[in-house]
């Protein structure tokens, strides 16, 4: 792993905070997309060149950097939403929790029994921190769009861990997982569109008709 890759990972960690701290949905979408692109380029930096690698890098960058943000921004436009006010967990507490999780991720990763060639790398702590920040966004926001962004952050965190296993993940599996993610976001985009039409908002706290009496 080289220093350029490390800088990419630090940038990914900073982008987590960008998502945690902003109420502007468009800005969050772009941050998550940028993170996805950075993660997509990472395999090219750490593994020797092969056509398989080139294919997977190009498709990740395309899907995470262009297609997914396009789908989400289209959903935002159709549902006519710009910002999220009053999340379940406020922006400042989110940032504090995010910092706490990131610190914990570093402490925890140092204790993990990693293979010698992976010890001391930024990949594992960055993966855990991104995963937990994603979970925080998922749980802490009211709007369906923000929850999707949280899910995407989680996926990015899991993907980062997958970097350590490049040999175990054949191209077909990687491509399949990426396709699943894309279709998932597509379906979620449609559902969000319907939620906003049905409830005239995409505030998921209004989704409360179904409960135990």
């Amino acid at each position: 792993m080289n220093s350029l890759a490390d800088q990419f990972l630090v940038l990914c960690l900073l982008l987590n905070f960008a998502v945690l701290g902003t109420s502007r949905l468009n800005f969050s979408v772009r941050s998550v997309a940028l993170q996805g692109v950075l993660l997509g380029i990472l395999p090219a930096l750490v593994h020797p060149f092969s056509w398989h690698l080139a294919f997977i890098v190009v498709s990740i960058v395309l899907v995470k950097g262009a297609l997914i943000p396009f789908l989400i921004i289209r959903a935002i436009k159709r549902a006519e939403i710009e910002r999220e006010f009053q999340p379940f967990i406020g922006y400042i507490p989110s940032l504090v929790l995010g910092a706490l999780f990131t610190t914990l991720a570093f402490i925890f990763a140092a204790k993990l029994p990693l293979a010698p060639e992976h010890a001391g790398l930024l990949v594992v702590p960055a993966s855990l921190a991104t995963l937990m920040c994603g979970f925080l966004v998922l749980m802490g926001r009211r709007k369906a769009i923000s929850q999707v962004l949280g899910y995407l952050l989680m996926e990015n965190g899991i993907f980062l861990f997958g970097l350590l296993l490049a040999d175990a993940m054949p191209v077909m599996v990687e491509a399949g997982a990426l396709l699943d993610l894309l279709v998932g976001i597509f379906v979620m985009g449609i559902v969000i569109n319907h939620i906003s039409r049905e409830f005239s908002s995409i505030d998921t706290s209004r989704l409360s008709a179904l409960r135990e009496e």
Partner: protein
Amino acid sequence: MMWALVLLPLAGALIAWLIPDNRKRALVLPVFALAQLFLVGALLVDTPPVSPAGWILLDPLGKLALISNSVLFAVCAFYAVGYLAYRRRRPNRVLCAALLVCLSAMTLVTISQHLGLLWIALEATTLTMAPLIYFNHNARSIEATWKYLLICSVGIAIALLGLFFLAYSTIVAKQDVTLLLPSLISDAAALHPGWRHAAFIFLLVGFGSKMGLAPLHTWKPDAYGEAPGLVGALLAGGLVNCALLALLRVYQIAVASTEGAMFQGVLLVMGLISMAFAAVFMARQSDFKRMLAYSSVEHIGIITVALGLGKGALFAGLLHMINNSMTKGVLFLSCGNIHRAYNSKSTTTVRGALRRTPWSGALFLAAFLAITGSPPFSPFVSEFLIVSSAFVQGNFWTGGLFLVFLALIFIGMASTVLPVVLGEVPADIERTRYRDTLPTVLPPLLLMGIILTMGLWLPAPLQQLLHEAAGQLGGGA
């Protein structure tokens, strides 16, 4: 040959999508379901060897899941023709195509030997189910769809992390990194214990949320309550088996490692908790479709308890997997008919179903008796075998609690089902177009026949297959 199993329904989905006529489109479903069933039969007689890269193989566990999914799907496909005839004005292009894509993904789950491929197929089933749950296009169904999508997607993402941990444990153990099932099983004991342990926990949480193991079941009542009957049947009888099969693959690795006993212990506790949750929430349930969701939580719990007990209970657990699929099929299909006939699924309006829809009412009643483990139906056999296996092993706490929960659930479920089926039809009831007809009654009747037959006589080849599958899980033949 094996790929044909996956590609055939996809071709059907494409054809269904291209057919412009709303009424004729529904006919694609039974045609392709039968073709698939025929192919499954041919593959059972003459199973091809493992594919060159080792990714695709139909082993006894996969066969069991494949048989029950294909039979259930075929029955639901025939039912769909009758059902959609009552809902002519609702566009069904997405429904028909998504059903067939779902069948294809479910089939891929059963034949995968590569855990990465299995994961992709399982995630695909999650996604194709979303439009099916949303078929009614109203506020309640969109809420159910959103909860289902979010909880299952996050669950399955956690399972992916679990798979990564499992692969990483092979790296730390200095082996070739792989996610192929046979090599993971043969090297299970040598995998790095810490990562392997973490992997098991993440995989249990991930697949558990898709199976609806309590307390990860929160999406189930909403999704089962709002989805059309035939989609509910596939969710509760088909999708559940796919998630269960994924868990069984993890189980295979766990028993081959040194951690089998611990993993079984966790499953035992999770199973009993699920049964307890079902017993509590089933009582006084005023929505009879939501009630079926808790019944599903219960039966997933029963199967998980059987897995936790191991040994002789494994045979019974696998038999219960099939019984559960078939019986849930009858319950959801008959319940869907009653829902159509009354245009309500609340016990305050729906009464006297035996009079208004005699066949559906009777089927609902019979399936209720079957699912709660009354003889002579086949769930009785599997539940009895599980309890007796618990006592034989000297696990009196498990056996005792199991019986208590079964009794509580019987009472809870009876208090909802009996008023729906028996009694007089309320006078001020809305008139609906639905009447019991051959296309909507024959499919569940057929399933009911299977349950009754299997209760009285288990065919030798099936018995053999169940023993082989139990053997794969470490239970002696």
